[in-house]
Protein backbone atom coordinates (compact mmCIF):
# COMPACT_ATOMS: atom_id res chain seq x y z
CA UNK A 1 0.00 0.00 0.00
CA UNK A 2 2.76 2.40 0.88
CA UNK A 3 4.28 1.63 -2.50
CA UNK A 4 1.21 2.95 -4.30
CA UNK A 5 0.96 6.02 -2.10
CA UNK A 6 4.50 7.27 -2.55
CA UNK A 7 5.52 10.80 -3.43
CA UNK A 8 6.14 10.20 -7.15
CA UNK A 9 2.74 8.65 -7.77
CA UNK A 10 1.13 11.45 -5.82
CA UNK A 11 2.76 14.04 -8.04
CA UNK A 12 1.71 12.16 -11.18
CA UNK A 13 -1.86 11.97 -9.87
CA UNK A 14 -2.01 15.72 -9.20
CA UNK A 15 -0.52 16.40 -12.63
CA UNK A 16 -3.12 14.23 -14.37
CA UNK A 17 -5.88 15.88 -12.33
CA UNK A 18 -4.70 19.32 -13.36
CA UNK A 19 -4.57 18.24 -17.00
CA UNK A 20 -8.06 16.69 -16.91
CA UNK A 21 -9.63 19.46 -14.85
CA UNK A 22 -10.82 21.56 -17.83
CA UNK A 23 -12.52 18.56 -19.41
CA UNK A 24 -14.70 18.10 -16.36
CA UNK A 25 -15.64 21.78 -16.29
CA UNK A 26 -15.54 22.53 -20.02
CA UNK A 27 -18.94 24.24 -19.93
CA UNK A 28 -18.29 26.12 -16.70
CA UNK A 29 -16.12 29.04 -17.76
CA UNK A 30 -16.25 30.62 -14.33
CA UNK A 31 -14.64 27.66 -12.57
CA UNK A 32 -11.91 27.53 -15.20
CA UNK A 33 -11.30 31.24 -14.86
CA UNK A 34 -10.96 31.04 -11.08
CA UNK A 35 -8.59 28.10 -11.38
CA UNK A 36 -6.45 29.92 -13.94
CA UNK A 37 -6.32 32.96 -11.70
CA UNK A 38 -5.31 30.77 -8.78
CA UNK A 39 -2.46 29.29 -10.83
CA UNK A 40 -1.22 32.79 -11.62
CA UNK A 41 -1.16 33.65 -7.92
CA UNK A 42 0.64 30.38 -7.22
CA UNK A 43 3.41 31.35 -9.65
CA UNK A 44 3.88 34.65 -7.80
CA UNK A 45 3.80 32.88 -4.44
CA UNK A 46 6.47 30.40 -5.55
CA UNK A 47 8.66 33.44 -6.08
CA UNK A 48 7.82 34.72 -2.62
CA UNK A 49 8.62 31.27 -1.23
CA UNK A 50 12.13 31.22 -2.69
CA UNK A 51 13.03 34.45 -0.92
CA UNK A 52 10.97 34.26 2.27
CA UNK A 53 10.76 30.49 2.68
CA UNK A 54 14.17 29.30 1.57
CA UNK A 55 16.45 32.33 1.95
CA UNK A 56 14.62 33.68 5.00
CA UNK A 57 14.13 37.25 3.77
CA UNK A 58 10.53 38.41 3.94
CA UNK A 59 9.92 40.94 1.18
CA UNK A 60 6.61 42.78 1.32
CA UNK A 61 7.22 44.47 -2.04
CA UNK A 62 6.17 41.30 -3.84
CA UNK A 63 2.77 42.60 -4.95
CA UNK A 64 4.56 45.69 -6.23
CA UNK A 65 6.66 43.52 -8.52
CA UNK A 66 3.56 41.57 -9.55
CA UNK A 67 2.06 44.92 -10.56
CA UNK A 68 5.22 45.97 -12.40
CA UNK A 69 4.93 42.78 -14.46
CA UNK A 70 1.23 43.37 -15.11
CA UNK A 71 1.64 47.04 -16.02
CA UNK A 72 4.65 46.31 -18.22
CA UNK A 73 2.53 43.95 -20.29
CA UNK A 74 -0.43 46.34 -20.14
CA UNK A 75 1.50 49.42 -21.27
CA UNK A 76 3.64 47.62 -23.83
CA UNK A 77 0.65 45.98 -25.53
CA UNK A 78 -1.96 48.76 -25.35
CA UNK A 79 0.30 51.83 -25.77
CA UNK A 80 3.33 50.55 -27.64
CA UNK A 81 1.37 47.96 -29.60
CA UNK A 82 3.85 45.17 -28.92
CA UNK A 83 3.13 41.49 -29.40
CA UNK A 84 2.06 39.86 -26.10
CA UNK A 85 4.92 37.38 -26.02
CA UNK A 86 7.54 40.06 -26.51
CA UNK A 87 5.78 42.20 -23.90
CA UNK A 88 5.75 39.29 -21.43
CA UNK A 89 9.46 38.68 -21.92
CA UNK A 90 10.19 42.39 -21.47
CA UNK A 91 7.91 42.50 -18.43
CA UNK A 92 9.97 39.80 -16.71
CA UNK A 93 13.21 41.56 -17.61
CA UNK A 94 11.92 44.95 -16.41
CA UNK A 95 10.77 43.42 -13.13
CA UNK A 96 14.15 41.79 -12.65
CA UNK A 97 15.93 45.06 -13.44
CA UNK A 98 13.89 47.05 -10.93
CA UNK A 99 14.23 44.19 -8.45
CA UNK A 100 17.99 44.26 -8.83
CA UNK A 101 18.18 48.01 -8.18
CA UNK A 102 15.77 47.86 -5.27
CA UNK A 103 17.36 44.72 -3.85
CA UNK A 104 20.81 46.30 -3.64
CA UNK A 105 19.42 48.97 -1.31
CA UNK A 106 16.85 46.83 0.51
CA UNK A 107 19.30 44.05 1.37
CA UNK A 108 21.46 46.46 3.34
CA UNK A 109 18.77 46.07 5.98
CA UNK A 110 18.00 42.88 7.89
CA UNK A 111 15.05 40.98 9.32
CA UNK A 112 12.25 43.29 10.51
CA UNK A 113 13.88 46.29 8.94
CA UNK A 114 14.03 44.48 5.61
CA UNK A 115 10.33 43.65 5.88
CA UNK A 116 9.43 47.25 6.74
CA UNK A 117 11.69 48.67 4.05
CA UNK A 118 10.19 46.45 1.37
CA UNK A 119 6.69 47.22 2.62
CA UNK A 120 7.41 50.89 2.01
CA UNK A 121 9.02 50.16 -1.35
CA UNK A 122 5.92 48.21 -2.35
CA UNK A 123 3.72 51.10 -1.31
CA UNK A 124 5.84 53.50 -3.36
CA UNK A 125 5.31 51.29 -6.41
CA UNK A 126 1.58 51.44 -5.71
CA UNK A 127 1.67 55.24 -5.42
CA UNK A 128 3.70 55.56 -8.60
CA UNK A 129 1.15 53.52 -10.54
CA UNK A 130 -1.72 55.41 -8.92
CA UNK A 131 -0.33 58.87 -9.68
CA UNK A 132 1.33 58.36 -13.06
CA UNK A 133 -1.88 58.78 -15.02
CA UNK A 134 -0.26 59.41 -18.38
CA UNK A 135 1.34 55.99 -18.40
CA UNK A 136 -0.78 53.79 -16.19
CA UNK A 137 -4.20 55.40 -16.41
CA UNK A 138 -4.05 56.13 -12.70
CA UNK A 139 -7.04 55.06 -10.68
CA UNK A 140 -9.00 54.14 -13.82
CA UNK A 141 -6.38 51.58 -14.74
CA UNK A 142 -5.59 50.08 -18.10
CA UNK A 143 -8.40 48.64 -20.18
CA UNK A 144 -8.37 46.43 -23.24
CA UNK A 145 -5.20 44.45 -22.74
CA UNK A 146 -5.16 41.88 -25.54
CA UNK A 147 -5.17 38.13 -25.04
CA UNK A 148 -1.94 36.32 -25.96
CA UNK A 149 -1.29 36.26 -29.71
CA UNK A 150 -1.87 32.95 -31.43
CA UNK A 151 1.16 30.72 -31.88
CA UNK A 152 0.58 29.09 -35.27
CA UNK A 153 -2.65 27.12 -34.96
CA UNK A 154 -2.84 27.54 -31.16
CA UNK A 155 -5.24 30.32 -30.22
CA UNK A 156 -5.84 31.61 -26.72
CA UNK A 157 -9.42 32.85 -27.07
CA UNK A 158 -11.06 30.13 -25.03
CA UNK A 159 -10.75 29.83 -21.24
CA UNK A 160 -9.47 26.27 -21.70
CA UNK A 161 -6.56 27.48 -23.82
CA UNK A 162 -5.69 30.14 -21.23
CA UNK A 163 -5.90 27.49 -18.51
CA UNK A 164 -3.38 25.27 -20.24
CA UNK A 165 -1.11 28.19 -21.03
CA UNK A 166 -0.98 29.28 -17.41
CA UNK A 167 -0.62 25.67 -16.26
CA UNK A 168 2.42 25.37 -18.52
CA UNK A 169 4.01 28.41 -16.91
CA UNK A 170 3.10 27.10 -13.47
CA UNK A 171 4.79 23.78 -14.17
CA UNK A 172 7.81 25.68 -15.43
CA UNK A 173 7.90 27.73 -12.21
CA UNK A 174 7.65 24.59 -10.07
CA UNK A 175 10.38 22.94 -12.11
CA UNK A 176 12.70 25.92 -11.64
CA UNK A 177 11.93 26.04 -7.90
CA UNK A 178 12.65 22.32 -7.48
CA UNK A 179 15.91 22.64 -9.38
CA UNK A 180 16.98 25.53 -7.16
CA UNK A 181 15.91 23.93 -3.87
CA UNK A 182 17.74 20.66 -4.49
CA UNK A 183 20.94 22.28 -5.73
CA UNK A 184 23.91 23.72 -3.88
CA UNK A 185 22.33 27.13 -4.49
CA UNK A 186 19.26 25.98 -2.57
CA UNK A 187 21.35 24.69 0.30
CA UNK A 188 23.25 27.97 0.28
CA UNK A 189 19.95 29.85 0.67
CA UNK A 190 18.99 27.43 3.41
CA UNK A 191 22.29 28.15 5.16
CA UNK A 192 21.60 31.89 5.00
CA UNK A 193 18.12 31.37 6.44
CA UNK A 194 19.56 29.26 9.27
CA UNK A 195 22.16 31.79 10.27
CA UNK A 196 23.76 34.47 8.17
CA UNK A 197 26.79 34.52 10.42
CA UNK A 198 27.32 30.78 10.12
CA UNK A 199 26.90 30.98 6.34
CA UNK A 200 29.56 33.65 6.21
CA UNK A 201 32.01 31.58 8.22
CA UNK A 202 31.63 28.84 5.61
CA UNK A 203 32.78 31.27 2.95
CA UNK A 204 29.38 32.15 1.52
CA UNK A 205 29.03 35.66 0.18
CA UNK A 206 25.64 36.35 1.71
CA UNK A 207 25.16 39.72 -0.01
CA UNK A 208 25.41 38.36 -3.54
CA UNK A 209 23.41 35.22 -2.74
CA UNK A 210 20.58 37.23 -1.18
CA UNK A 211 20.52 39.60 -4.13
CA UNK A 212 20.36 36.75 -6.67
CA UNK A 213 17.60 35.12 -4.64
CA UNK A 214 15.73 38.44 -4.57
CA UNK A 215 15.97 38.86 -8.34
CA UNK A 216 14.84 35.26 -8.98
CA UNK A 217 11.95 35.84 -6.59
CA UNK A 218 10.71 38.99 -8.33
CA UNK A 219 11.06 37.41 -11.78
CA UNK A 220 8.32 34.96 -10.74
CA UNK A 221 6.18 37.91 -9.65
CA UNK A 222 6.81 39.68 -12.95
CA UNK A 223 5.85 36.61 -14.95
CA UNK A 224 2.71 36.09 -12.89
CA UNK A 225 1.77 39.77 -13.26
CA UNK A 226 2.18 39.64 -17.04
CA UNK A 227 -0.06 36.58 -17.27
CA UNK A 228 -2.57 38.23 -14.96
CA UNK A 229 -2.81 41.26 -17.25
CA UNK A 230 -3.68 39.17 -20.26
CA UNK A 231 -6.12 36.95 -18.39
CA UNK A 232 -8.07 39.66 -16.60
CA UNK A 233 -7.48 42.20 -19.39
CA UNK A 234 -8.11 45.09 -17.04
CA UNK A 235 -5.64 46.17 -14.40
CA UNK A 236 -5.88 48.76 -11.65
CA UNK A 237 -3.35 50.03 -9.11
CA UNK A 238 -4.87 47.91 -6.31
CA UNK A 239 -2.88 44.87 -7.49
CA UNK A 240 0.23 46.61 -6.11
CA UNK A 241 -1.48 47.30 -2.80
CA UNK A 242 -0.63 46.02 0.63
CA UNK A 243 -3.84 43.95 0.75
CA UNK A 244 -2.51 41.97 -2.18
CA UNK A 245 0.89 41.24 -0.65
CA UNK A 246 -0.63 40.16 2.65
CA UNK A 247 -3.04 37.93 0.74
CA UNK A 248 -0.05 36.26 -0.94
CA UNK A 249 1.65 35.93 2.41
CA UNK A 250 -1.43 34.40 4.00
CA UNK A 251 -1.73 31.79 1.23
CA UNK A 252 1.97 30.97 1.61
CA UNK A 253 1.95 30.70 5.40
CA UNK A 254 -1.18 28.59 5.58
CA UNK A 255 0.02 26.29 2.80
CA UNK A 256 3.50 26.01 4.24
CA UNK A 257 6.33 28.51 3.97
CA UNK A 258 9.60 26.95 2.86
CA UNK A 259 7.89 23.85 1.46
CA UNK A 260 7.47 22.86 -2.16
CA UNK A 261 3.75 22.08 -2.11
CA UNK A 262 2.83 24.92 0.26
CA UNK A 263 2.05 27.61 -2.33
CA UNK A 264 -0.31 25.29 -4.25
CA UNK A 265 -2.18 24.00 -1.20
CA UNK A 266 -2.53 27.37 0.53
CA UNK A 267 -3.69 29.22 -2.57
CA UNK A 268 -6.19 26.63 -3.79
CA UNK A 269 -7.64 26.23 -0.31
CA UNK A 270 -8.22 29.94 0.18
CA UNK A 271 -9.38 30.71 -3.36
CA UNK A 272 -12.06 28.01 -3.18
CA UNK A 273 -13.01 28.85 0.39
CA UNK A 274 -13.52 32.41 -0.79
CA UNK A 275 -15.83 31.22 -3.53
CA UNK A 276 -18.02 29.42 -1.05
CA UNK A 277 -17.95 32.28 1.41
CA UNK A 278 -18.89 34.86 -1.18
CA UNK A 279 -22.20 35.60 0.48
CA UNK A 280 -20.37 37.24 3.33
CA UNK A 281 -17.40 38.77 1.50
CA UNK A 282 -17.03 41.54 4.04
CA UNK A 283 -16.71 39.15 6.93
CA UNK A 284 -14.46 36.53 5.38
CA UNK A 285 -11.55 37.66 7.54
CA UNK A 286 -13.60 36.53 10.55
CA UNK A 287 -12.86 33.00 9.35
CA UNK A 288 -9.47 33.50 7.71
CA UNK A 289 -8.00 35.46 10.61
CA UNK A 290 -8.39 32.73 13.25
CA UNK A 291 -7.21 30.04 10.79
CA UNK A 292 -4.07 32.04 10.11
CA UNK A 293 -3.40 32.72 13.78
CA UNK A 294 -3.85 29.08 14.77
CA UNK A 295 -1.60 27.86 12.00
CA UNK A 296 1.16 30.32 12.83
CA UNK A 297 1.05 29.26 16.48
CA UNK A 298 0.79 25.49 16.07
CA UNK A 299 2.21 24.78 12.62
CA UNK A 300 4.73 27.45 11.62
CA UNK A 301 5.35 25.53 8.41
CA UNK A 302 1.68 25.44 7.46
CA UNK A 303 -0.49 22.58 6.31
CA UNK A 304 2.36 20.88 4.48
CA UNK A 305 4.59 21.15 7.53
CA UNK A 306 1.83 19.68 9.68
CA UNK A 307 1.40 16.73 7.33
CA UNK A 308 5.15 16.17 7.23
CA UNK A 309 5.50 16.13 11.00
CA UNK A 310 2.49 13.84 11.28
CA UNK A 311 4.02 11.41 8.79
CA UNK A 312 7.36 11.65 10.58
CA UNK A 313 5.58 10.81 13.84
CA UNK A 314 4.01 7.68 12.39
CA UNK A 315 7.29 6.60 10.86
CA UNK A 316 9.19 6.86 14.16
CA UNK A 317 6.35 5.13 15.98
CA UNK A 318 6.60 2.27 13.53
CA UNK A 319 10.36 2.10 14.06
CA UNK A 320 10.04 2.28 17.81
CA UNK A 321 7.44 -0.47 17.99
CA UNK A 322 9.76 -2.77 16.06
CA UNK A 323 12.60 -1.67 18.32
CA UNK A 324 10.66 -2.21 21.52
CA UNK A 325 10.53 -5.93 20.81
CA UNK A 326 14.29 -5.95 20.90
CA UNK A 327 14.56 -3.97 24.11
CA UNK A 328 11.99 -6.24 25.70
CA UNK A 329 14.00 -9.30 24.84
CA UNK A 330 17.15 -7.56 26.02
CA UNK A 331 15.65 -6.73 29.35
CA UNK A 332 14.47 -10.31 29.81
CA UNK A 333 18.01 -11.37 29.03
CA UNK A 334 19.22 -9.11 31.80
CA UNK A 335 16.70 -10.52 34.18
CA UNK A 336 17.59 -14.06 33.39
CA UNK A 337 21.22 -13.22 33.99
CA UNK A 338 20.38 -11.66 37.29
CA UNK A 339 18.45 -14.71 38.27
Amino acid sequence: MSKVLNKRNGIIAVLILSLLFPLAFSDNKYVLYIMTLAFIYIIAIYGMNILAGYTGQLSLAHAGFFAIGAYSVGVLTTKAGLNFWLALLLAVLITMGIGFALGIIALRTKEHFFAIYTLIAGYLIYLLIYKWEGLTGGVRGLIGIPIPNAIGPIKFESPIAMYYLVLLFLLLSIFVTVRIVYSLTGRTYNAIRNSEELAQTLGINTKINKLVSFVISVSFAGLAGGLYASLVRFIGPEIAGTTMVFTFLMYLIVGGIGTLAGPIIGTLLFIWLEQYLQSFQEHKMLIFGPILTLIVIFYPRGIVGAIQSLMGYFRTRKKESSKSYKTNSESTDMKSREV
Partner: protein
Amino acid sequence: MNHLLKLSDVTIKFGGFEALKNINLEVHEGELVVLLGANGAGKSTLFKTISGLNKMTSGDIQFNGNSISGAAPDRIVKTGIVQCAEGKKLFSEMSVQENLMMGGFVHRRKKAQLKQSLEETYDLFPILKEKKDDAAGSLSGGQQQMLAIGRALMAKPKLIMLDEPSIGLAPLIVEQMFSVIQSINRNGTTVLLAEQNANAALKIANRGYVIENGILVLQGNSKELFNNDEIRKAYIGA
Protein backbone atom coordinates in the same frame (compact mmCIF):
# COMPACT_ATOMS: atom_id res chain seq x y z
CA MET B 1 59.76 31.10 12.70
CA ASN B 2 57.30 32.60 10.30
CA HIS B 3 54.08 33.83 11.74
CA LEU B 4 50.95 32.71 9.93
CA LEU B 5 48.59 34.94 11.89
CA LYS B 6 49.57 38.14 13.60
CA LEU B 7 47.28 40.49 15.53
CA SER B 8 48.69 43.93 16.34
CA ASP B 9 46.95 46.13 18.90
CA VAL B 10 43.50 44.86 18.00
CA THR B 11 40.83 46.79 19.85
CA ILE B 12 37.05 46.48 19.63
CA LYS B 13 34.50 48.74 21.20
CA PHE B 14 30.80 48.00 21.34
CA GLY B 15 29.46 51.44 22.10
CA GLY B 16 31.38 52.55 25.16
CA PHE B 17 32.36 49.00 26.14
CA GLU B 18 35.84 47.85 25.21
CA ALA B 19 35.44 44.14 24.46
CA LEU B 20 39.04 43.66 23.35
CA LYS B 21 41.93 45.90 24.37
CA ASN B 22 45.20 46.04 22.42
CA ILE B 23 45.43 42.37 21.64
CA ASN B 24 48.83 41.26 20.33
CA LEU B 25 48.84 37.63 19.36
CA GLU B 26 50.85 35.46 16.99
CA VAL B 27 50.34 32.00 15.64
CA HIS B 28 53.18 30.36 13.78
CA GLU B 29 52.83 27.93 10.95
CA GLY B 30 52.16 24.40 12.16
CA GLU B 31 51.56 25.38 15.77
CA LEU B 32 48.74 24.48 18.09
CA VAL B 33 48.01 27.53 20.19
CA VAL B 34 45.47 27.60 22.97
CA LEU B 35 43.55 30.65 24.11
CA LEU B 36 42.45 30.20 27.72
CA GLY B 37 39.74 32.25 29.29
CA ALA B 38 36.56 32.09 31.33
CA ASN B 39 33.08 32.71 29.98
CA GLY B 40 32.79 36.26 28.71
CA ALA B 41 36.53 36.87 28.73
CA GLY B 42 36.51 37.67 25.03
CA LYS B 43 37.53 34.40 23.37
CA SER B 44 34.59 34.24 20.97
CA THR B 45 34.78 37.98 20.28
CA LEU B 46 38.42 37.57 19.32
CA PHE B 47 37.61 34.66 17.00
CA LYS B 48 34.78 36.55 15.37
CA THR B 49 37.11 39.48 14.84
CA ILE B 50 39.70 37.32 13.14
CA SER B 51 37.07 35.75 10.89
CA GLY B 52 35.72 39.18 9.94
CA LEU B 53 32.32 38.96 11.62
CA ASN B 54 33.19 41.75 14.06
CA LYS B 55 34.61 45.01 12.78
CA MET B 56 37.73 46.19 14.57
CA THR B 57 37.83 49.66 16.07
CA SER B 58 41.59 49.83 15.63
CA GLY B 59 44.55 47.56 15.04
CA ASP B 60 45.67 45.26 12.27
CA ILE B 61 45.41 41.57 11.48
CA GLN B 62 47.92 39.93 9.16
CA PHE B 63 47.50 36.48 7.70
CA ASN B 64 50.16 34.82 5.60
CA GLY B 65 51.89 38.17 5.23
CA ASN B 66 48.84 40.12 4.02
CA SER B 67 46.55 42.38 5.97
CA ILE B 68 43.03 41.00 6.26
CA SER B 69 41.72 43.89 8.36
CA GLY B 70 38.22 44.85 7.26
CA ALA B 71 37.92 42.00 4.72
CA ALA B 72 34.51 40.35 4.33
CA PRO B 73 34.10 37.02 6.17
CA ASP B 74 33.78 35.00 2.97
CA ARG B 75 37.03 36.50 1.64
CA ILE B 76 38.78 35.52 4.85
CA VAL B 77 37.60 31.93 4.49
CA LYS B 78 39.04 31.91 0.98
CA THR B 79 42.44 33.07 2.28
CA GLY B 80 42.51 30.02 4.56
CA ILE B 81 41.11 30.86 8.00
CA VAL B 82 38.09 28.85 9.04
CA GLN B 83 36.26 29.22 12.30
CA CYS B 84 34.36 26.40 13.92
CA ALA B 85 31.86 28.23 16.06
CA GLU B 86 30.96 27.39 19.62
CA GLY B 87 27.76 25.52 20.32
CA LYS B 88 27.86 23.06 17.39
CA LYS B 89 25.97 25.26 14.97
CA LEU B 90 24.87 22.82 12.31
CA PHE B 91 22.22 22.75 9.62
CA SER B 92 20.08 20.36 11.60
CA GLU B 93 17.68 19.49 8.77
CA MET B 94 20.43 18.69 6.30
CA SER B 95 22.13 15.30 6.30
CA VAL B 96 25.60 14.79 7.72
CA GLN B 97 27.12 14.64 4.25
CA GLU B 98 25.25 17.75 3.09
CA ASN B 99 26.60 19.61 6.12
CA LEU B 100 30.11 18.55 5.20
CA MET B 101 29.60 19.60 1.59
CA MET B 102 28.46 23.03 2.78
CA GLY B 103 31.80 23.27 4.57
CA GLY B 104 33.53 22.81 1.24
CA PHE B 105 31.57 25.70 -0.26
CA VAL B 106 34.66 27.71 -1.23
CA HIS B 107 35.94 24.73 -3.25
CA ARG B 108 32.56 23.95 -4.81
CA ARG B 109 33.94 23.89 -8.34
CA LYS B 110 36.77 21.46 -7.54
CA LYS B 111 34.74 18.26 -7.43
CA ALA B 112 37.67 15.84 -7.22
CA GLN B 113 39.28 17.74 -4.36
CA LEU B 114 35.97 17.86 -2.49
CA LYS B 115 35.55 14.13 -2.82
CA GLN B 116 39.02 13.60 -1.42
CA SER B 117 38.43 16.00 1.48
CA LEU B 118 35.23 14.14 2.24
CA GLU B 119 37.11 10.84 2.40
CA GLU B 120 39.78 12.38 4.64
CA THR B 121 37.12 13.75 6.96
CA TYR B 122 35.43 10.35 7.11
CA ASP B 123 38.80 8.74 7.90
CA LEU B 124 39.22 11.18 10.77
CA PHE B 125 35.65 10.65 12.02
CA PRO B 126 34.48 7.16 10.96
CA ILE B 127 31.22 7.62 12.86
CA LEU B 128 30.24 10.40 10.45
CA LYS B 129 30.55 8.03 7.51
CA GLU B 130 28.27 5.57 9.24
CA LYS B 131 25.68 8.31 9.73
CA LYS B 132 26.24 10.24 6.52
CA ASP B 133 22.58 10.15 5.44
CA ASP B 134 21.12 10.93 8.87
CA ALA B 135 19.87 14.40 9.70
CA ALA B 136 22.54 16.35 11.54
CA GLY B 137 20.02 17.19 14.26
CA SER B 138 19.69 13.51 15.17
CA LEU B 139 23.34 13.12 16.18
CA SER B 140 24.58 13.05 19.76
CA GLY B 141 26.41 16.03 21.24
CA GLY B 142 29.86 14.60 20.61
CA GLN B 143 29.01 13.57 17.07
CA GLN B 144 27.63 17.03 16.35
CA GLN B 145 30.87 18.57 17.52
CA MET B 146 32.81 16.19 15.29
CA LEU B 147 30.60 17.15 12.38
CA ALA B 148 31.17 20.84 13.07
CA ILE B 149 34.94 20.29 13.06
CA GLY B 150 34.72 18.08 9.99
CA ARG B 151 32.71 20.72 8.20
CA ALA B 152 35.33 23.35 8.97
CA LEU B 153 38.08 21.03 7.69
CA MET B 154 36.26 20.62 4.37
CA ALA B 155 37.35 24.15 3.48
CA LYS B 156 40.98 22.95 3.70
CA PRO B 157 42.04 25.78 5.98
CA LYS B 158 45.63 26.75 6.72
CA LEU B 159 44.41 27.86 10.13
CA ILE B 160 41.42 26.38 11.91
CA MET B 161 39.96 28.18 14.89
CA LEU B 162 38.05 25.96 17.30
CA ASP B 163 35.83 27.68 19.81
CA GLU B 164 35.40 25.49 22.90
CA PRO B 165 35.04 22.13 21.19
CA SER B 166 34.84 20.34 24.55
CA ILE B 167 31.91 22.32 25.91
CA GLY B 168 29.05 20.19 27.21
CA LEU B 169 30.64 16.85 26.33
CA ALA B 170 31.16 13.77 28.49
CA PRO B 171 34.73 13.39 29.88
CA LEU B 172 35.51 10.38 27.73
CA ILE B 173 34.37 12.20 24.56
CA VAL B 174 36.39 15.26 25.57
CA GLU B 175 39.52 13.13 25.65
CA GLN B 176 38.77 11.80 22.17
CA MET B 177 38.07 15.30 20.94
CA PHE B 178 41.46 16.57 22.07
CA SER B 179 43.31 13.67 20.50
CA VAL B 180 41.49 14.36 17.23
CA ILE B 181 42.50 18.02 17.43
CA GLN B 182 46.06 16.95 17.98
CA SER B 183 46.00 14.72 14.93
CA ILE B 184 44.47 17.51 12.82
CA ASN B 185 47.43 19.64 13.87
CA ARG B 186 49.92 16.86 13.09
CA ASN B 187 48.41 16.51 9.63
CA GLY B 188 49.63 20.04 8.93
CA THR B 189 46.78 22.36 9.88
CA THR B 190 47.64 25.18 12.24
CA VAL B 191 45.20 25.29 15.14
CA LEU B 192 44.03 28.12 17.36
CA LEU B 193 41.96 26.64 20.14
CA ALA B 194 39.80 28.54 22.61
CA GLU B 195 39.21 26.59 25.79
CA GLN B 196 38.29 26.69 29.44
CA ASN B 197 39.56 23.18 29.99
CA ALA B 198 43.17 24.27 30.56
CA ASN B 199 44.31 20.88 31.80
CA ALA B 200 43.47 19.02 28.61
CA ALA B 201 44.20 21.88 26.23
CA LEU B 202 47.68 22.62 27.55
CA LYS B 203 48.60 18.94 27.21
CA ILE B 204 48.29 19.12 23.42
CA ALA B 205 49.24 22.77 22.79
CA ASN B 206 52.62 24.26 21.95
CA ARG B 207 51.92 27.67 23.39
CA GLY B 208 49.09 29.51 25.05
CA TYR B 209 47.58 32.86 25.84
CA VAL B 210 45.31 33.76 28.73
CA ILE B 211 42.58 36.31 28.17
CA GLU B 212 40.67 38.10 30.92
CA ASN B 213 38.15 40.89 30.40
CA GLY B 214 39.36 41.48 26.86
CA ILE B 215 43.05 41.74 27.79
CA LEU B 216 45.75 39.16 27.19
CA VAL B 217 47.20 38.80 30.66
CA LEU B 218 49.64 35.94 30.19
CA GLN B 219 51.43 34.08 27.48
CA GLY B 220 54.05 31.39 27.27
CA ASN B 221 54.73 27.84 26.20
CA SER B 222 52.37 25.25 27.55
CA LYS B 223 54.73 23.96 30.23
CA GLU B 224 55.20 27.43 31.72
CA LEU B 225 51.48 28.02 31.71
CA PHE B 226 50.77 24.61 33.16
CA ASN B 227 53.07 25.30 36.09
CA ASN B 228 51.83 28.83 36.62
CA ASP B 229 50.18 29.11 40.02
CA GLU B 230 47.42 31.48 38.98
CA ILE B 231 46.43 29.30 36.09
CA ARG B 232 46.41 26.24 38.28
CA LYS B 233 44.11 28.05 40.66
CA ALA B 234 41.81 29.57 38.08
CA TYR B 235 41.51 26.90 35.41
CA ILE B 236 42.86 23.62 36.62
CA GLY B 237 41.73 23.68 40.23
CA ALA B 238 44.76 22.03 41.76
